[in-house]
């Protein structure tokens, strides 16, 4: 009976986190509903239909298209142009650029007194004040209509762009959280991961700048420098593990000291400056996409699958849980406790190093100021994800949900315009709430 009960409780606990995430997503989807402007090719087609309706005679009508200099706007303009030209409306010019370009074009029209009926704008260009009071400033253009696509209501949160943003934004923290989950499951803690982000990013970028030919470095060099950054962090993690197992120093103290050492090393290596002389293609990992999905997010997903299999299907994974539940019992049962501990701190160092590389790639530079306070966000994500700080319990996918919850709250608050002071209060309360749930869960288990 008790087995059934605890299974049920466990299911509920896991389910509860997912429910909380779902509730958050639904809430922010509704809270961020605002006026959306059709953009890209569909927006262009929509505006084209409106213009055709407004000027049914077609032939003889002259339009000027004004958009910004971006890919989305270029698609908008070309769809719009193709469709209205099809109906015989002449497109005098397409301005793709700044308000000053539009102004120059307006002046040209006003001087040449050639015909102009409609200025077709994109969502952003319609707000340009360069088109205000046209009649007064350019009497020639008094009858010109300014048209832009009709807005509709939609959710900012649910836009595909935003969801991909979230996936990309969580990558660094989520990768670090894998190592941290393992460490916390053994009942330990690793405070050094934030500094290791900086150390890894700085090592890789400084090596690229000084040894591998800076902007002209090849793919192999970029790979080599990145691996060097990850390896150094792995080494630092292993060092922490050794100090903890050989000298029985508490993990909190060891990793606190290592945090300072790693941070200082990053500053020394970088000489306090950021290293940015790296090839353009270095951003592929952090900002590239494969089949429309961010590379960093794919890497993160792959690592989670591997970590999940490792933790739940291998002997070593079970050993990690055993060490966290009861180290003494684990030792007597023949679990190589010290080896397990060294391994988890090594993995934590490696994931932190990889996180640093991803960040260096996202920002196309390495700076010793990266990763400040990240250890706390990572620990928070792991705890929110249901891993108990007392060790022995926790799931890798729970951690992923925890990372997502924190990211969704942050993104949602940014989108709804919550002040940054308030954001901190909310995040703190969420973490507190999660620990509270963890406590209640444990007392429920103990009592029943």
């Amino acid at each position: 009976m008790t087995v059934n009960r605890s299974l049920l409780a466990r299911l509920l606990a896991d389910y509860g986190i997912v429910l909380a995430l779902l509730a958050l997503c639904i809430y922010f989807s509704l809270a961020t509903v605002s006026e959306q402007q059709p953009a890209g090719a569909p927006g262009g087609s929509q505006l084209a239909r409106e213009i055709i309706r407004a000027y049914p005679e077609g032939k003889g009508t002259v339009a000027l298209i004004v958009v910004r200099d971006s890919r989305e706007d270029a698609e908008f303009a070309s769809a719009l142009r193709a469709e209205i030209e099809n109906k015989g409306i002449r497109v005098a010019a397409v301005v793709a650029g700044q308000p000053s370009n539009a102004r120059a074009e307006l002046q040209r029209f006003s001087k040449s007194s050639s015909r102009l009926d409609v200025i077709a704008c994109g969502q952003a260009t319609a707000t340009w004040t360069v088109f205000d009071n046209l009649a007064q400033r350019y009497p020639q253009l008094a009858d010109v209509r300014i048209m832009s696509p009709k807005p509709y209501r939609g959710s900012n949160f649910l836009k595909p762009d935003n969801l991909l943003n979230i996936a990309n934004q969580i990558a660094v923290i989520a990768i670090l959280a894998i190592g941290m989950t393992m460490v916390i499951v053994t009942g330990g803690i690793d405070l050094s991961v934030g500094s290791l982000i900086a150390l890894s990013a700085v090592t890789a970028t400084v090596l690229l700048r000084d040894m591998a030919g800076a902007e002209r470095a090849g793919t192999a060099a970029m790979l080599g420098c990145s691996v060097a950054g990850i390896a150094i962090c792995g080494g630092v993690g292993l060092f922490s593990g050794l100090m903890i197992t050989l000298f029985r120093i508490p993990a909190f103290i060891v990793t606190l000291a290592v945090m300072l050492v790693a941070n200082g090393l990053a500053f020394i290596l970088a000489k306090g400056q950021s290293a940015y002389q790296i090839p353009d293609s270095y951003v592929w990992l952090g900002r590239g996409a494969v089949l429309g999905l961010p590379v960093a997010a794919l890497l993160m997903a792959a690592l989670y699958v591997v970590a999940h299999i490792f933790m739940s299907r291998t002997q070593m994974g079970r050993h990690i849980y055993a060490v966290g539940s009861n180290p003494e019992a684990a030792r007597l049962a023949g679990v190589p406790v010290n080896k397990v501990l060294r391994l988890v701190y090594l993995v934590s160092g490696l994931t932190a190093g990889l996180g640093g590389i991803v960040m260096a790639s996202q920002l196309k530079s390495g700076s010793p100021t990266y990763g400040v306070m990240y250890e706390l966000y990572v620990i928070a994500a792991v705890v929110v994800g249901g891993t108990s700080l007392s060790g022995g319990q926790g799931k890798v996918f729970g951690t992923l949900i925890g990372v997502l919850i924190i990211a969704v709250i942050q993104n949602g608050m940014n989108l709804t315009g919550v002040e940054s002071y308030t954001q901190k209060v909310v995040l703190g309360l969420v973490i507190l709430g999660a620990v509270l749930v963890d406590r209640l869960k444990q007392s429920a288990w103990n009592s029943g």
Partner: protein
Amino acid sequence: MKRTASSVLVALSLVIFGCAPEGTSKTGGTPSSTPIGVTPPESKGKIGLSVLTLTNPFFKVIADTLTAEAKEHGYEVIVVSGEFDVAKQQNQVKDFIVQKVVAIVLTPCDSKSIGTAIKEANDAGIPVFTADIACLSPDAKVVSHIATDNLSGGREAGNAMKEALGEAGGKIAILDFNVVESCIQRVKGFREVIDAHNVGKPKGKIDIVTVLPGGGAKDMGYKAAEDALQAHPDLAGIFAINDPSALGARAALEKAGKADKVRIIGFDGQPEGKQAIKDGKIYADPVQFPDKIAIETVHAIVKHFAGEEVPKELLVPTSLYRKEDAMKDSSLK
């Protein structure tokens, strides 16, 4: 078990949900989501502002003034803070792009690493302006950079030091913060004036005997001034690159019982610094005008959208603030 867990979740969600609507009403720039009567005549869109930190009053003033000034011109401002974390600031810029802001204003957390975020905004066709801190990344396009003229501010500080020490001259220390470009400029301007003053002077020279890192913060300024006093007990003046480090230096002087012998020149003109000038603790400050920076920034944005040319760089001059200015200042106690 089921009941406790779910009630906690409900409580948790209340906490989250309870806070957010406060913010949503603030961003309600679209007529339909704003209460009747509060709607500005016509919304021209949103401007995204991400500052270095909101814990420093300087940036708070920039944020508040920019919001108010932009509202006058029909724009709504979304204010966020990077809190010194450039990765966080990059995410904020991405969120701005999703929200389709019409313009972005940044005080970058890192002059070089912010380049990729600005590039993304460039690619989305959104004009970017920087205030106070410049972007030094070559591939990022910034429409205009609006900042204090730190070089001439540093010169003013040099003149104030000449004035404070008078005919006698003497040994002085500089507490610098040489990882930030603006502070480097201040020291450069200061040195120019002092060097020019010393040319061909047999007596009454002002001698810069030491330059120590003041960290731009009280605790670091305190330690640096203590060390300077140990090495040079006959110090006559200290130039600190901002108010917190100047006040830290003042505390060290008071502890050493030399408060009356050493003149301090600060920089910034934050309320605490101005008060210290009134109390005679700091001799003078070249003051910065964060409100003017914010107003100039909004004007640059308005001009840009009106299709006018905006200069690449707009410098707002400082002005020297002495005790007699502080006596007339009604904002001080």
